[in-house]
């Protein structure tokens, strides 16, 4: 079991988690693997490729669901079974892509990378999406540090 505490205030985590829950529910609808297939002239391979990615994404989402349901997460405590680490890392990545395509779709890459200095003037849904994006990045970074 890997365990660590996030360096994020609990009230922020508790404010953001419901939004992450909503985005999690959206992930399977938003994420489309069909454009990922390399430009190869092989329809059968394409079908198997996309189906494979979709099936494996379900496993990743299950690991993420376990984390989101953890009663200690709202208090900044992350607990992950060793076998779940890879799936969870991928699940966290997927939800960051979902946030990028939904809550943060109007924000430029540059704004995100430089920390969105104009955060106070953005719409509430963008602001909460951005905090969710950062919280998930924090979990991912800490988890990678723990396994490195």
């Amino acid at each position, binding site marked *: 079991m890997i365990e660590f505490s996030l360096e994020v205030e609990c009230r922020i985590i508790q404010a953001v988690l419901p939004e992450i829950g909503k985005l999690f529910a959206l992930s399977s609808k938003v994420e489309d*693997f069909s454009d*990922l297939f*390399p*430009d*190869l002239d092989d329809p059968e*391979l394409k079908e198997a*490729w996309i189906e*494979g*990615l979709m099936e*494996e994404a379900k496993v990743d989402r299950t690991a993420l669901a376990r984390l989101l349901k953890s009663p200690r997460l709202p208090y900044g405590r992350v607990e992950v079974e060793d076998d779940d680490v*890879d799936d969870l*890392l*991928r699940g966290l*990545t*997927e939800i*960051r*892509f979902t946030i*990028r395509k939904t809550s943060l779709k109007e924000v430029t*890459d540059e704004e*995100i*990378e430089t920390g969105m200095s104009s955060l106070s003037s953005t719409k509430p849904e963008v602001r909460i999406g951005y905090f969710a994006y950062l919280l998930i*990045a924090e979990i*991912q*970074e800490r988890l*990678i*540090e723990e*396994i*490195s």
Partner: protein
Amino acid sequence: MKICIFTIGIYEILIYKDKLMSFDLLNSTLATPLLDEKTELDECLATPWKVIVLNDPVNLMNYVVMVFKKVFGYNDTKATKHMKEVHEQGKSVLWVGEREQAENYAYQLQRWRLQTILEKDD
């Protein structure tokens, strides 16, 4: 550079830089060009493919390094070098080789949600 050799009857067929050449086994003459154009045969032979990872605005740098280490078994230095190439130049060629293995790597990288494409290594 690509060199493929196979035998038909008394001839060795040599494909070098997309040129089809013949080599007479009995007379040991030097190879001469037969065709300049690519043929279907060429397709069947193992053309090297490049596995290329593209930059994206979402994935964290340490995540990308971790994925390169996991998928290719690269050490930290090599994985970091490729990550920096992706970040600074927009893409990096991670691997070159046989198509089937290239597809395998591309699939694994996509499973980790890294934007990956395959290109023939001309």
